[in-house]
């Protein structure tokens, strides 16, 4: 069974068509990246899958249920570009937030928080405040929180976009080992081609005005990905593939200059 099924999905913001007739299926254990220029609707698509905004028409099914039902069943964890940590909570309590809301017992909560902080290598920072951590550490807290309740689906909206290249590559490796350990399905929004190719099992290339899927590229790099994956010829071939697909999407866009800018 596919984890996410999107069919005939269209989203209008007023006169602007942010997404037009999107069709996409994501299977269990996949790591799918959505990539495209600003305004192609990739973040909008992710938010519709998470039922944070509603589509104008079309359907989204998550784990065989409507997206709304999946949200109320807490089927997914989400990581935003901004870590969205609550300053009034310690690191440990931020990670425990979804568990508190799911009424886990204190003991179970504490055990799980410990495990999650180990997973993102933040042991010893339980009692720190979010503002006492660096940007990369904050984002790891956010990932730990999203994974804490074992969601079958992880939605990530440019989670490493604000980080420097070094930190980003390190967190990419970390994310892959978390993906491997947790067994969840990941939908990942980015505008870094290298990041998309390195992480994904499939890259969905999107183009703007109106936002649509222009190509879906399977990434056949061997698993698990390692530091040397980025140096393989196949990696560069695939990066080039994705880049060309992105430019093609852009060129197709040219004949319609009258179309209005869509918001991402």
């Amino acid at each position: 069974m596919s984890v996410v099924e999107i069919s005939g999905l269209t989203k209008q913001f007023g006169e602007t068509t942010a997404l037009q007739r999107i069709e996409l299926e994501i299977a269990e254990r996949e790591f799918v990246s959505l990539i495209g220029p600003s305004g192609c609707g990739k973040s909008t698509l992710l938010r519709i899958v998470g039922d944070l905004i509603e589509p104008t028409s079309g359907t989204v099914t998550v784990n065989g249920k409507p997206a709304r039902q999946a949200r109320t069943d807490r089927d997914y964890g989400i990581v935003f570009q901004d870590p969205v940590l609550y300053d009034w909570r310690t690191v440990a309590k931020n990670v425990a937030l979804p568990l508190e809301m799911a009424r886990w017992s204190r003991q179970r909560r504490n055990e799980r928080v410990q495990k999650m902080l180990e997973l993102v290598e933040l042991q010893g920072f339980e009692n720190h405040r979010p503002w006492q951590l660096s940007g990369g550490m904050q984002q790891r807290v956010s990932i730990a929180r999203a994974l804490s309740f074992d969601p079958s689906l992880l939605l990530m909206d440019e989670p490493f976009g604000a980080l420097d290249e070094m930190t980003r590559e390190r967190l990419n490796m970390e994310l892959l080992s978390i993906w491997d350990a947790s067994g969840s399905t990941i939908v990942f929004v980015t505008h870094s081609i290298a990041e998309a190719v390195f992480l994904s099992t499939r890259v969905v290339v999107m183009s703007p005005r109106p936002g649509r899927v222009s190509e879906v590229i399977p990434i056949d790099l061997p698993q698990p990905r390692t530091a040397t994956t980025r140096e393989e010829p196949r990696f560069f071939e695939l990066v080039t593939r994705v880049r060309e697909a992105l430019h093609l999407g852009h060129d197709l866009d040219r004949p319609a200059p009258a179309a209005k800018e869509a918001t991402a």
Partner: protein
Amino acid sequence: MSSGAPVAVQPVPRGGLGRLVGRRAVDWLPALVVLVGIVALWQGLIVWTHAQQFLLPKPTSIASAFWTDKHELWSAGWYTFQEALGGFVLGSGLAILLALVLARWRPLGTALLPYAVAANAIPIIAFAPITNQWFGGGLTKSSKIAIAAILCFFPVLVNTLRGLTSVRPQDLELMRSYAAGNVEVFRRVRIPTSLPFMFTGLKVATVLAMIGAVVGEYFGGALNAIGVLILSRSRVFQFNEAWAGVLVVCLFGLALYIAVAALERIVLRWVPSTSE
């Protein structure tokens, strides 16, 4: 990643009550020097210019009047402080409750907020002679509690409401992803976000509560109230005693303010600026 050197991590600020209440004694020294200087200057100027006592008594005369009448002054101050405290608790409490209601039902808030802001900007103390009559007559404690409560009400309401509604959109989006209900959004996001705003309002309210109670008493109050005492002493030209009364009002007012500021420090330990 390798265990990676943590970047810019400060220890979680912890400290005893002394740390919470304020800076270390050394940090207070400059302020103390200024106080001593001002009092000395005041004393020196009066001795030097032979100013009339009714214009401004010498600090030493005030201090000696304070010492002589200390029991009467303290008990009068305490009486008025109770009125101020009652008004503070009542007015602030009602304001916080109303702010929660207005934040929950936004159209109501949109309709009422302009009036709250306007009321916050007018000198409500002008109503004191009238409210004295509304709430059980001029001599009662409740009439002073009422005027103090009304004075406290608006700044706390306006600030708390502003805090409850200035939540970051992404904080709400996270709550939505957890399918959180309204009560949970208030408990976990809106109320914590509003606390720094609320305390700003509460600190303003402590000052207003004392003003409300004392000025209320100027328009008539119990004989053992500090406002009445200040008024009667100045009418019979006992200016040293009147000033000693003002000093007592200042001390009680400061005590209330410091108590709320200390509570703020304890409650808002998570705010970067208060824990420094």
